[in-house]
């Protein structure tokens, strides 16, 4: 029998499967400056994100603990990898761009300065074809932005 899951490779790219299975940043930070929880009441996915700032206010480190699907764990991990070293303002802009990409497949009007980090997040663009899964990809970002903004909780609803 041919692998009829082939057409799912746009959603479950090797990068996603890899980061979903072996996330590099799935850990609680020993010391942190901000944290927030995110949950998706529709599906029960939960995540907690911790952030440590550098002296210049950029994100020095971030980690997370998540219970959720491969998409949500991989997205959290790629997010952590991408935002380390970025300012809060950059991270907010990147979130907006990522959200558009997750919903539409691309971010056509995005600032050129976001091209490099967006490319790293590109493996998640496939979720736009699965409307019920978009929130899986954005949950970690909602939690991160809540932590940056000083809120304690976020929801992807």
């Amino acid at each position, binding site marked *: 029998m041919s692998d009829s899951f082939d*057409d799912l490779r746009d959603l*479950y790219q090797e990068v996603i499967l890899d980061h979903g299975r072996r996330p590099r940043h799935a850990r609680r930070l020993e010391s942190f400056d901000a944290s927030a929880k995110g949950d998706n009441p529709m599906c*029960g*996915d939960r995540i907690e994100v911790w952030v440590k700032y550098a002296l210049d206010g950029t994100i020095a480190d971030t980690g997370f603990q998540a219970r959720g699907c*491969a998409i949500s764990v991989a997205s959290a991990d790629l997010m952590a990898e991408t935002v380390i070293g970025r300012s809060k303002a950059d991270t907010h802009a990147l979130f907006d761009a990522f959200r558009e990409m997750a919903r539409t497949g691309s971010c056509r009007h995005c600032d050129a300065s976001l091209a490099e980090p967006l490319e790293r997040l590109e493996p998640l663009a496939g979720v736009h074809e699965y409307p019920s899964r978009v929130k899986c990809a954005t949950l970690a970002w909602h939690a991160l932005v809540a932590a940056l903004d000083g809120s304690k909780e976020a929801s992807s609803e």
Partner: protein
Amino acid sequence: MNVTTRPALLDVARVRADFPILEQRIRGKPLVFLDSAASAQKPRAVIDAMRGAMETQYANVHRGLHWMSERTTDAYEAARDAVAALLNARDRHEVVFTRNVTESLNLMAHSYGRGVLKPGQAVVISGMEHHSNIIPWQLLRDDRGVELRVAPITDAGELDMDGFEALLADGRVGLVSMTHMSNVLGTYTPAERIVRVAHAHGAKVLFDGAQAVVHRRVDVQALDCDFYAFTGHKLYGPTGIGVLWGRRELLDAMPPFLGGGEMISSVTYERSTWAEVPHKFEAGTPPILEGIGLKAAIDYVQSIGYDAIAAHETALIDHALARLGAVEGVQILGRAQDRGGVVSFSLDRAHAHDVATLLDRQGIAVRAGHHCAEPLMHRFGLDSTARASFAIYTTHDEIDYLADSLARVREFFR
């Protein structure tokens, strides 16, 4: 391995021909609909009945003095007779139409909980309830001080009868509100025993029959229960109509639920009086077309017969437990002896949502998540499971296809 247990009574091919939607292809593959516990598909008889009513005899019910209204009233009230016969109710007036089971349970929490139960009394539910049989009682507790007690369940996913009885020992329990069949575990609760124990301690019993009535004949006299709720759309009928059956003297003693037209006897600004049951609980224009559709659904189910349905589904469950249980990495949740047509499971390598997305690509519709039963999931240390649920149109081949597909999903996530 279960060939010998296949029922001779139910001709699945003929049943499937009654459901137009099953001819659909999904992503180029035949639709394998294993999500009937969420909402079942509709036979042509239901579709035709509702369309026919709209095309030939539609009007508002109960107050029109014209031919259309009289015809429609007759058709709508015939649904009440059909429900009364389905449940073996003594009196058609004991059948109250609601929107769904959620509304039936909220009606109970409102009218029985606030009108009959007293602060300091308690309501007992079980550890395997749908949120709709938890939240209304929490709201009642917080509003009126009616205690909420939760009867424990065993690791096998069955009601712990000793634990249940212990909750009733102090005589303060006024009502037991419990699922008749778990939407997650498939467990049938031992309804007759529950009623005997509850009545012995002075408590009335309400069953949430949303799942149970689909798979088995429900006889409220044989169960000896006091209230029973079910919904149309899981019983191959339309959405928007549910049922609360209750014993006449109990319904008579309850205050109204929603206020408005249809539920009154007389109205002045100073004082209004209520219509007799069931209309006391049926404010506003009722779900007319949905009632007509429900009647058609009940007639359809009765024409197949619960003996055939139960035999068919027992065979499906046995087959599913054997086939899914044999797939490496699949863990089935719940091992109740007495169970109906739902199987919840998890896969070691993939989250339930990923499983559901991959199965969808094979044309298989399953549910994934907490199934509106978060406390139950936490009882088993889970956040979510995938759930396959079966209906009269489900085939053994579909279960084989699910099992084979699950093995391939696991391979995908290796």
